């Protein structure tokens, strides 16, 4: 084993290199990078799906793709962007940063962490492989009874059900890991009131995942029973006694918290970036954290606002309308606190700041349009129209993706030891910013002009032609921005400027250690005395670690690599393939998975006999 105490530049934080070391890694930083790369590939794929859709809709009556292919494209675009791009991109940051920010040497369960990644990877490949035989074509919301065998006989829906069950399992496992890490592995002095906001948002997001996904998993399983075992859970009363609205309740009980699962991490990233580049503390730390918590709570009380037009009745609609509009309060508090953080700061106009400010600007638009369809009568016009497409993209592109890019530019030097080019970054920002406004801005107008969502073609002369063309042009500006980002990444990797430990004059713990950090992160576990420990160690007299006189040097034990997480994840994923194509394969895969689990537990026992710090799980 290498004992590199000083990291080499460029090379990633590791003791070994080579493919095998990546497959067996349990290092949270490497797993974070694996998440990042994998999720970005899925992000690009889902983006290409969007471009094809925009081309199809650029003009009326086009026949670039068939209606069925278009339906597959928007189903996969939505599913992939949510579950295979934004969520795992967020998980990449959680993985890489949470231990660094709380002063820990790894996450609570390093091998379980690896398992989450491999399961996510295999599930993503599994879902994308469905294009070969016909991808799911029922929308990412998969409303029953359209998803029942009678109306969707192809295996696409099975791919969707099983793929999401796998992705859900991967997310829950990862979320439990982060919850325990944050609750239990904070450095001395890192109290909850000193936790960086990004870590707070990770904690809230993880709780949302843990609580929101099980009901959804039940829904997918029941749908699977409907399709395979002939039950009729979602086939309506007249014929079978089931209830298609039950699907919607179960789906949106996950589906709405999911929005906050996607946006809260970006809010956390922005809450780190704005203070650093303003050289000020975050304005109203406590208010921002409590807003996040209340958004998390309220997120579970609003699901039926996705169902304002299904006829739940005036009273139910009014109640859900109130809970929905209430979310405007914590959201507003956050936006104003961010603005106040900038106010009277010393703002360094670097790329991460551009993206962070872009996030606040665009997310505000998404929030305002959201407030409009929180009103049930207004929603009766806007629901399922392009207005909603505009709204959700302002939240998820203008919000999540902008926040993620801000985070990428901000933490890239910590991950790789190299800076991304700032000038290219700014050009990329403006392309993304303008492109997204040109794409999604006109969709507000299209929605108000009565253009429904999820239509693969439309007739000319309804006033939709021009704005659709504009939107398509905008989408290619976004694509250009993404290409420029990839170029910037390539440039940084081959000859990026060396970042050093602290390129941005940072405030939190991760900037106190080398870039990229050594495998064990902290040689000395810091002792935290404020909620900006690194800043205060630079600018006030609060040191990061109390001097321990004559302390004996001790060995740092890091968990050993293991390939069992990948084996177990592969077994579980092949079981899903088996459920669709061959039951014997499913049985063999499940047995392989159990064998892997036992090997995993035995491995842990052996390790703990020695002097290692291997984690039990």
């Amino acid at each position: 084993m290498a004992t590199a105490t000083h990291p080499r530049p460029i090379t990633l934080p590791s003791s070994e290199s080579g493919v095998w070391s990546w497959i067996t890694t349990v290092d949270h930083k490497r797993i974070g990078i694996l998440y990042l790369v994998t999720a970005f590939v899925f992000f690009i794929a889902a983006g290409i799906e969007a471009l094809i859709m925009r081309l199809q809709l650029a003009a009326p009556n086009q026949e670039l793709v068939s209606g069925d292919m278009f339906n597959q494209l928007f189903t996969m675009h939505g599913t992939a962007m949510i579950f295979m791009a934004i969520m795992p991109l967020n998980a990449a940051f959680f993985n890489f940063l949470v231990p660094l920010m709380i002063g820990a040497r790894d996450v609570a369960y390093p091998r379980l962490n690896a398992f989450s990644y491999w399961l996510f990877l295999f599930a993503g490949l599994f879902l994308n492989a469905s294009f070969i035989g016909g991808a799911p074509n029922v929308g990412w919301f998969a409303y029953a009874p359209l998803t029942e065998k009678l109306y969707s006989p192809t295996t696409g829906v099975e791919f969707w059900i099983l793929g999401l069950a796998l992705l859900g399992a991967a997310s829950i496992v990862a979320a439990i890991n982060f919850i325990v890490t944050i609750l239990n592995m904070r450095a001395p002095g890192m109290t909850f009131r000193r936790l960086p906001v990004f870590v707070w948002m990770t904690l809230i997001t993880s709780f949302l995942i843990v609580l929101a996904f099980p009901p959804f998993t039940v829904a997918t399983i029941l749908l699977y029973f409907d399709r395979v075992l002939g039950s009729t859970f979602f086939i309506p009363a007249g014929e079978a006694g089931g209830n298609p609205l039950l699907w919607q309740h179960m789906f949106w009980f996950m589906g709405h918290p999911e929005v906050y699962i996607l946006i809260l991490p970006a809010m956390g990233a922005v809450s780190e970036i704005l203070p650093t580049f303003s050289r000020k503390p975050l304005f109203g730390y406590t208010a921002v954290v409590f807003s996040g918590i209340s958004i998390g709570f309220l997120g579970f009380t609003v699901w039926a606002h996705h169902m304002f037009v299904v006829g739940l009745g005036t009273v139910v609609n009014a109640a859900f309308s109130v809970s929905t509009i209430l979310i405007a309060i914590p959201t507003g508090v956050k936006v104003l606190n961010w603005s106040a953080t900038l106010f009277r700061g010393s703002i360094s106009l670097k790329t991460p700041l551009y993206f962070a400010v872009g996030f606040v600007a665009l997310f505000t638009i998404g929030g305002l349009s959201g407030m409009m369809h929180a009103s049930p009568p207004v929603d009766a016009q806007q629901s399922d129209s392009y207005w909603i497409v505009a709204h959700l993209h302002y939240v998820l592109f203008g919000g999540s993706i902008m926040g993620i890019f801000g985070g990428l530019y901000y933490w890239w030097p910590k991950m790789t030891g190299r800076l991304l080019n700032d000038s290219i970054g700014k050009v990329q920002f403006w392309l993304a910013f303008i492109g997204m406004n040109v794409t999604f801005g006109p969709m507000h107008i299209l929605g108000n002009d009565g253009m429904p969502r999820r239509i693969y073609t439309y007739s000319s002369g309804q006033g939709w032609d021009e704005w659709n063309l504009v939107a398509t042009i905008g989408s290619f500006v976004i694509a250009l921005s993404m290409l420029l980002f990839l170029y910037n990444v390539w440039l940084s990797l081959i000859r990026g400027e060396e970042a050093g430990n602290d390129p941005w004059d940072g405030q939190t713990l991760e900037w106190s250690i080398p870039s990229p950090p050594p495998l064990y992160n902290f040689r000395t576990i810091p002792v935290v005395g404020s909620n900006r420990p690194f800043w205060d160690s630079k600018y006030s007299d609060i040191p990061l670690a109390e001097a321990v006189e004559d302390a004996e040097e001790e060995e740092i034990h890091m968990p050993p690599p293991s390939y069992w997480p990948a084996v177990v994840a592969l077994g579980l994923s092949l079981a899903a393939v088996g459920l669709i194509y061959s039951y014997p394969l499913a049985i063999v895969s499940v047995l392989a998975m159990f064998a892997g689990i036992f090997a995993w537990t035995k491995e842990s026992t052996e390790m703990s006999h020695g002097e290692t710090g291997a984690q039990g799980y």
Partner: protein
Amino acid sequence: MPPVRGVRGPIGTVRYRNPALLAAAVAIIAPLLAACGELTQSTQQPVADNARQIQDLFMPILWISAIIFVLVQGALIYSVIRYRRRSESDPIPVQVHGDTRLEALWTVAPAVIVVVVAVMTFRTMAVQAEAPPPDALKVVVEGHQWWWKVVYPDLGIETANEIYVPIDRAIDVSVESDDVIHSFWFPQIAGKIDAIPGRTNRTLFTVEKIGRYQGQCAEFCGFAHAQMKMLLFAVTEADFESWTAAMKSTPAPQGLAQQGAEIFNTFISPTTGRGCFICHTVDGTSAQGTLGPSLTALGSRSTLGAALIDNTTENLTAWIRNPADIKPGVLMPVVGLDDDQIAAVVAYLQSLR
């Protein structure tokens, strides 16, 4: 693109764009000149009370949003420009951690806005929740993949995809579905309401202006969701009376049309095993199939294929020859009639008016 896909004729409403909408939409590109004058589905041009009430609620909320938008973006732009770091030697700013009074203020301010929006919303909801007046015209609309069945239960009329209503009279629509979930939406007339199998949803509106209005299914319902449209004709009471009368009389077919009627009512293609009457109903005849839309008085309808193409001889012929050629995914199969048979059936269907 097959030549049959003709665009329907203009109905002549002048387009009107709301300037505030443009402002909110931050589109940088100047509005292009729209080639207007065709059928619109704009929610901004309400012609019935229901859509107008929503529009009257939407506009103030939009203005509130516009003000918040300007304030927030203004604060951001001002801060970033005013407080940008001019050189690396700029002093470290005052380390303000927060301000309880300010934060209390901007917790209360959104709360006030929330209350205002909620109160306005509830007022509109209360108005729209009123029970239909006793003279309301009852219409049952049932969604099918991918067409609309339209029934006037009190008048004993069944038709498809084209709804006739009198103006200035409350229309009480019951929305149902036969298969998957659809959504009944005439943007100019009323907010959408989902058509859910096993449930009956209601919507109520009074059309105030004579005209032909277009609607469309708004809930994704499978392959041809994009081409599941419908029309609503708002006419005077007198015109509505004569329409109902016409719907109830089935003219006796003559000549070629009579041959067509025979084919329609009895012929089963030996190659495909299909025939018109198996799926379609024509009131007053022996054709009583229920899988497809009723073709009663088809000759008087203005469109075919769920308001997709104009009801012309050419289009009807092409439709019967191969419906999926015009509307991909359509559940109506190729029946397997030869050209002469098709011509006869077309003549028959066109005679139904």
